[in-house]
């Protein structure tokens, strides 16, 4: 309150003390802070538990027939996977830099960086379209006579990329919205950590798999 009460109606608000990468540090809390909002971490830890169980179940199933799993793994389209990984990593960097730009109040670059992340997200969807359409065509042409399982993560990938696209879009809209009152710090600066976490979390599958 002391910080805000010292700001006059026409003056520029003083910037909060910064740690590395423009992360705002709340007074009295040192460099330690919960990234984004506490609630998002409940969702993320739930997701992490799901991934842990999924990994353990997959590996336990693999033990029953390692030969079949290795044979199936070698039929996967690693090129599509690599392109997806690079697109997700590129979009994560763009969002991280965009969030930093918003925190540092460099409003000129933030929308451009988020738009770049949106382009990468669109590239991911297009890549998935080609990957899955090829698989579906192969399934339609050739009835499943072999025992090779066809694994797909379409719902997971689609929901992740849709959430990432929504995040980028909402940040772009916020950045272009009406100028904030001088005494009220922008919501973009306060909430940006949550968007950063969402986009960082969307990169987890590409890192692990």
């Amino acid at each position, binding site marked *: 309150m002391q910080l805000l009460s010292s700001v006059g109606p026409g003056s520029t608000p003083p910037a909060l003390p910064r*740690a*590395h*990468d*423009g*992360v705002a540090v709340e007074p009295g809390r040192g*460099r*330690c*802070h*919960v*990234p*984004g909002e506490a609630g998002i*971490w409940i969702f993320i*830890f739930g997701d*992490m538990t799901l*991934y*842990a169980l999924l*990994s*353990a179940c997959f*590996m*336990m199933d*693999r*033990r029953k027939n*390692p030969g079949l*799993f*290795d044979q199936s*793994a*070698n039929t*996967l389209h*690693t090129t599509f996977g*690599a392109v997806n*990984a*690079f697109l997700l*990593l590129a979009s*994560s*960097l763009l969002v*991280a*830099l965009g969030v*930093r*730009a918003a925190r*540092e109040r*460099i409003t000129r*670059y933030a929308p451009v960086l988020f738009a770049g992340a949106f382009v990468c997200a669109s590239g991911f969807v297009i890549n998935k379209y080609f990957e899955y359409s090829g698989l579906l065509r192969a399934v339609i042409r050739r009835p499943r006579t072999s025992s090779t399982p066809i694994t797909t993560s379409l719902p997971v990938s689609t929901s992740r990329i849709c959430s990432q696209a929504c995040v980028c879009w909402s940040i772009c809209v916020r950045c272009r919205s009406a100028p904030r009152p001088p005494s009220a710090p922008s919501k973009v600066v306060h909430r940006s*950590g949550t968007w*950063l*976490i969402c*986009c*960082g*979390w969307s*990169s*987890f599958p*590409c*890192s*692990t*798999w």
Partner: protein
Amino acid sequence: MLKLARSAVTPVWVLLMVATAASCSLVAHHGIGIHKVVTVAVLLVAFVKVALIGLYFMELRHAPPLLRHIFHGWYLAVCTVVVVIYLAS
């Protein structure tokens, strides 16, 4: 723009790209599941990448110790389980 690019996430991002390219190259040259050492190496690289994304892109390195310890515990536990079951099969 240069000021932004000097962020700590930029070198980490380069490292992640190199690690991804290295994993892809290993898989392309050796296949999947043929050499156990290669598969374990790819798995370890993947979990290092998970740690880097968590610490730098999700800002966990500035997080309270409890949050940080849960995250470290998670990827170490999952990595151990996956690698041990893989080697045992």
